[in-house]
């Protein structure tokens, strides 16, 4: 049994990379286009353009009307969506295998012929501002996480949120969108992934037919400044109406290709996955924390550049926030002093393997794994190294990464301090 599908690889003359994973488990395919476009590539002043632009990709071409793309895919039995991250923007259609060519045709069309107009930009700008209010401003902890990244990063573009700052969303122009489209939406900046009940040769021929004539573009001039190593703890306080106090902490860790990410993942699981985890036993079970977690994403969602391992604690109403935070750092300190016992190591490793195998159940995820490793790490084959990497982790590896990355000097903390409605209003509107 092969857990991860085998992929065939092909590149068009214009630079478009095509990866095909054949699977006959269901009569469907997942068609995905991953662009090397994310908030990482943005500049101050136009933050959020990557995500707003993702919305604009549904606004129609010369041949297809606004939002017609979605209607046509659904009318042919498909589901579809898109998502923007720090490091990639991805579009996908999961549809009956017999309708595969339709997805290729529509995706190639909007890569080449997108219609960008003021009339479609204006309502979409408001839709995105509403989405920002939902995810950040009015969510209990959304703004806290934004503040955390803004403080942890001083130079790198991960310091602003993928959805962008509200003022920038208000100021973005149609010209900004056109420029973004021209620079980032080129065949040589994209990877097409097809997974499912289809032959690789047929995919290569069809993709060649619809994308082959689209010219490549000069690669974008990158303006990404690497982050300097942090040399001491940074702290901030954010005040808002809240039922509970909470803290969110960030530790800088390496990017997606670094082998230390795997022991770090095992460490996160020993801390907070399952009811025998350290945080659950010490903090959640006795009712000190509503929730306490250590997380850093999972493959293929690891950051492309050096990223963040996040530790957060939401205090239960019966405990002072500083007491909770103190206990969390004590728990972390223990991990930096003593290696995991054999039983705890083997448990955390097995949990990690099991979770990864669970994620492989859908064709969609298998496609993401190949496409995002290609875009973020430069090689889809690296996905094959994940399971063996988990297997080889030792207690010494976990101890070493705990000492190296979970140092107080590498830590940034943002505290949520609950205030009254009157004080909340006095501090001005959250945007």
């Amino acid at each position: 049994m092969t857990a991860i599908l085998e992929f065939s690889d092909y590149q068009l003359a214009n630079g478009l990379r095509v990866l095909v994973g054949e699977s006959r488990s269901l009569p469907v395919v997942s068609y995905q286009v991953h662009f090397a476009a994310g908030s990482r590539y943005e500049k101050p002043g136009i933050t959020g353009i990557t995500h707003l632009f993702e919305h604009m990709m549904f606004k129609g071409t010369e041949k297809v009307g606004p939002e017609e793309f979605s209607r046509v895919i659904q009318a042919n039995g498909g589901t579809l969506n898109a998502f923007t991250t720090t490091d990639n923007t991805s579009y996908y259609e999961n549809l009956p295998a017999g309708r595969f060519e339709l997805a290729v045709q529509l995706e190639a069309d909007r890569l080449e012929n997108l219609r960008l107009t003021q009339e479609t930009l204006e309502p979409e700008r408001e839709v995105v501002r509403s989405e920002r209010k939902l995810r950040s401003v009015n969510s209990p902890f959304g703004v806290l996480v934004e503040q955390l990244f803004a403080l942890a990063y001083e130079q790198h573009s991960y310091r602003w949120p993928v959805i962008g700052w509200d003022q920038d969303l208000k100021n973005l122009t149609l010209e900004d969108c056109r420029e973004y489209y021209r620079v980032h939406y080129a065949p040589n900046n994209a990877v097409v992934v097809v997974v499912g009940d289809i032959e690789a040769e047929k995919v290569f021929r069809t993709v060649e037919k619809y994308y082959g004539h689209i010219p490549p573009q000069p690669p974008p001039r990158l303006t990404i400044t690497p982050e300097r190593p942090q040399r001491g703890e940074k702290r901030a306080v954010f005040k808002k109406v809240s039922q509970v106090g909470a803290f969110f902490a960030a530790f800088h860790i390496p990017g997606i290709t670094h082998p230390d990410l795997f022991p770090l993942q095992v460490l996160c699981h020993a801390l907070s996955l399952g009811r025998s985890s350290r945080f659950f036993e010490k903090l959640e079970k006795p009712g000190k924390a509503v929730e306490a977690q250590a997380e850093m994403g999972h493959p293929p969602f690891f950051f492309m550049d050096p990223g963040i391992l996040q530790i957060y604690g939401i205090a239960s109403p019966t405990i002072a926030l500083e007491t909770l935070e103190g206990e969390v750092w004590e728990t972390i300190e223990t991990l930096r002093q003593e290696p995991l016992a054999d039983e705890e190591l083997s448990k955390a490793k097995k949990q990690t393997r099991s979770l990864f195998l669970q994620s492989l159940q859908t064709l969609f995820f298998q496609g993401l794994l190949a496409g995002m490793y290609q875009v973020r790490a430069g090689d889809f084959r690296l996905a094959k190294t994940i399971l063996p990497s988990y297997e080889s982790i030792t207690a010494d590896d976990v101890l070493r990464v705990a000492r190296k990355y979970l140092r107080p000097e590498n830590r940034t903390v943002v505290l949520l301090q609950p205030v009254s409605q009157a004080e909340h209003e006095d501090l001005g509107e959250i945007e």
Partner: protein
Amino acid sequence: MNSRVKTKSFTLPKIFSALLQGGLKVYSIPKPELPLVSIHLVLPRGAEADPPGKAGLADLTAEMLTLGTQKRSASRLAAEVDGLGATLSAQSGWDSTSLHLFGLSEDFERLMSLLLEIYTQPAFPPEEFEQLKQRRIANLVQEKDESEIIADERFQEILFQGTPYDHPAYGTLKTIPQLVGDEAKEFYQRGFLPEGSFLLMIGDVEEEACFRWVEAHFPGGVRGKEAVSKTPSFYSPSGVKTVMIDRPDLTQSQIRLGHIGMPHGHPDFLPFEVMNFVLGAGGFSSRLMTKIRVERGYTYGIRGSLALRKNPGPYSISTFTPTATTFPCVREIFSLIQSFLVQGATEREREEAINFLTGSYPLKFESLPQIAQRIIQAEVHGLGLESLADYPERIAAVTLEEMALSARKHLHPERMLIVIVGRSEKFRGEFEPLGPVAIRE
């Protein structure tokens, strides 16, 4: 581009079943693609069986099963489950309670032994019960900051007042502190081994191995007392009523509007599903999304959905919008429903909805828990397993007339309950012409 989708035939995974001597029904669905197994023990009663004033008792009782057995303390049980890389959950939803273990197929027998132990030998340790209550109380306090959850819960509570669905399955800040350990123990003894329970195993384990293990280990007497069969009456009040939950700190309102709908097994369910795809469930193919998001830019998302329940569930339209557009958004939704009731769907919309529902149907059978969920729903809601195989054909046969009839019979703008979580002072006056407005904290 919109001709009828003809896909290579999709066949459901093969479902093997057996009836144990003790009366327990057992399903086995071999799926060897990945070395995983998902095990579900389902009891046909859920939070609707919470006694009056005891909201959360069924779900709390279910979770207590995972917090210690006569052989193992809660900590040892957790270490055992985590040590297998598995996840264990026990939850009561509406109409059923489910014990779920998801792990690696290499551990199938150990997982089954654990499930049996949890199900038949729970210990209900008093200190675990108290800690669980405290955790729930803390969670419920924190959830007061989650405007989406408040909107969903208040909408259902008010809509289903006087019925068994009138409370959150998780419990409330009023009821949880009052519950005592003996109540959970008694609830388990009285109602957790009812007739109609079934066991489902899906994954990389052959059916013979499943049945052999269950026959050898599940005791014959596991069937307990009969499930309390309630046939509640559901009452949809006439008139439009608005309830606002005042949250002056929010810059965006959460909106829910709707009324009591129909049971999953209702003969009009499938025509309603096709009709509602056109009206509210079809994403960018739906009239609501086109009007409220695309044309007006009022929101990021809007959806009309009918909950799947054994008894009538809620039909609700859910969205959110900045404070200033709260009333215009609701007004547009009403006007759209009114005109949709008059004009109905078009033939093209019908065809596209059918293509979507039938074409994307195989995607609902990808992961093990997904497949299990489909089977559990069919069983618990009384649809029968054949409904899973028949679905595409029956959907494809739905006519425009049936859709229009289902809208007229089951969509009632004149009986809507509107719940809004947001800055009520900013829009309260605008809502008053629609009907009574109540403000709650």
